[in-house]
């Protein structure tokens, strides 16, 4: 070999599919007791389900993710949000695993959420959409799996809010999976975590275009609030070092002297992040999904570990050194709960300067760890 092997090609072109998981007269019941008459789930699959249906891997997305985790949609300039992680020869190897990713209930990327039309009223739910919990996402995804012919998952993988789903899935339905991969997540937000989300929600709620959540029927959108929420959240996803290395104090080209415009490159970047977000995310979903994280506290239930100790799941918990949004102590706390219940748990604190967003980046040690864990104990 005289030249380095080229990076293996990705999955190629993929489609988002939609599946209704409710039937007439059989609504979807939420953990709160509220119900949704119709729930449609947007999902994608990659790879091939094997004959004995033993190679299925579910990917749980984070706050602003969607079902399009990998591969390309025609005409797009970027592949799916976790394309560096999922594909032939990649950490989640689609030559070996059949991968499913679905958009969350309460989301806005094809799955039923607060901006969907309420079939009972014919108008968008708005703030009448019931509050959802992490366990509702899991219930929906288990039902999706059943309808795709998958009763048992080799692994369930997720980062951040996705990791919370993985943890909840393993605690409540341990007989439905062998391996749980919980990355850069938390089992209990701190006051600071909640505070950041609170400011984001307030920016949306106080935007005069919000119209009590019925903005679409007013032909409006709380662009200002939603973009501010995104800009502020984005700051918490990167480390100080990441900002410093990307932008330093570089001034924005083409600015007209000092003022209150976009003087610094970092301001331009945040502005861009906020603008792009408006094209793909819904303000109501942002309220609902951030609230889900605030209330997630599975170990507050004294019996939280009762089921999983009956049906042990193998856990991989990982954090990143520079993540200050869900810093390593969040992951260590999860590990303590699991390990002290006698469960097989592996923990890594991975070196990365990039902050919380590290879980979306191509970092060799990280990807090698997940690859090894998924294939552990087998000979291939």
């Amino acid at each position: 070999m005289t030249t380095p092997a080229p990076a293996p090609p990705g999955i190629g072109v993929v489609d988002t599919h939609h599946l209704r998981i409710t039937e007439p007269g059989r609504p979807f019941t939420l953990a709160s007791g509220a119900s949704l008459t119709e729930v449609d789930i947007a999902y994608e699959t990659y790879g091939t389900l094997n004959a004995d249906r033993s190679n299925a891997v579910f990917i749980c997305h984070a706050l602003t993710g969607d079902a399009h985790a990998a591969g390309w949609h025609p005409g797009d300039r970027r592949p799916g949000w976790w394309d560096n992680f999922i594909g032939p020869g990649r950490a989640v190897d689609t030559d070996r695993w059949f991968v499913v990713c679905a958009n969350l209930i309460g989301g806005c990327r094809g799955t039923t959420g607060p901006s969907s039309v309420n079939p009972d009223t014919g108008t968008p739910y708005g703030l009448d959409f019931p509050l959802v919990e992490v366990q509702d996402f899991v219930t929906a995804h288990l039902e999706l799996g059943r309808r795709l012919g998958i009763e048992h998952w080799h692994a369930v993988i997720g980062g951040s809010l996705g990791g919370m789903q993985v943890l909840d899935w393993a605690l409540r339905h341990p007989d439905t999976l062998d391996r749980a991969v919980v990355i850069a997540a938390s089992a209990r937000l701190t006051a600071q975590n909640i505070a950041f989300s609170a400011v984001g929600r307030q920016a949306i709620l106080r935007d005069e275009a919000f119209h009590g959540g019925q903005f679409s029927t007013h032909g409006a959108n709380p662009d200002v609030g939603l973009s501010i929420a995104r800009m502020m959240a984005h700051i918490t996803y990167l480390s100080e070092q990441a900002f410093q290395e990307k932008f330093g104090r570089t001034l924005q080209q083409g600015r007209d002297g000092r003022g209150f415009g976009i003087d610094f490159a970092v301001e331009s970047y945040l502005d861009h992040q906020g603008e792009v977000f408006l094209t793909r995310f819904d303000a109501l979903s942002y309220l609902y999904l951030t609230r889900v994280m605030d209330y997630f506290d599975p170990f507050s239930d004294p019996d939280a570990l009762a089921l999983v100790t009956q049906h042990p799941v193998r856990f991989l918990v990982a954090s990143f050194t520079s993540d200050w949004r869900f810093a390593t102590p969040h992951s260590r706390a999860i590990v303590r709960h699991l390990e002290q219940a006698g469960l097989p748990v592996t923990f890594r604190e991975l070196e990365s300067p990039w902050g919380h967003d590290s879980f979306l980046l191509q970092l060799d040690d990280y990807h090698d760890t997940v690859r090894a864990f998924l294939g552990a104990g087998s000979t291939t």
Partner: protein
Amino acid sequence: MTDQTPRPGLLRPDLTLVAGLVPAGSRVLDLGCGDGALLAHLIETKGCRGTGVEREPDDVLAAIAADVPVIELDLDSQLSEFADGSYDVVVLSRTLQAVRHPGHLLTEMSRIGERLVVSMPNFGLWRHRLRLLSGHMPRSKDLPYSWHDTPNLHHATLVDLEALFAELGLRIERRIPLDEDGRPSRHSGRVANLLAGAAIYVLRRKA
């Protein structure tokens, strides 16, 4: 902290001895577990459960690939992650000499587990004494490193080591001196301190 290349399916001789000291069905914490070979062996052949602790990235990956649960943490400062009395056996193989505070580590081990299995190279081996007399730092199969490039922070003879156990209230239940090839030697006491390249101890907290 292996100093020999592991061969698949074949446990390092000293680890085979350690494995023999672990009761079947125990919950085992292996501190400095390397590639997880000991735990994999115990899980497979003795129905044990357990957790390894390791920090060397290549070893951690190898342990994960072998399906051994492994937790990355610092032995000197982070053993408080483990609860009191949460393991039946806590193993520390050839690692005590490489931590910053061996006394603190042993105390933590005896808090976490009922029975400790500890092995350590013997600085008092006659060959080491001769090397020192000739004016050089000892090197041997058990202490293969040059003084300036070694993971080992502390050197002790078996006599010194046993004094530390006594000071910490750890009762020696079994002592297995190893000859320079890692096989159990028949010698004991002062002779062992002269002839053993290393020793394995089974310890319990004094009641």
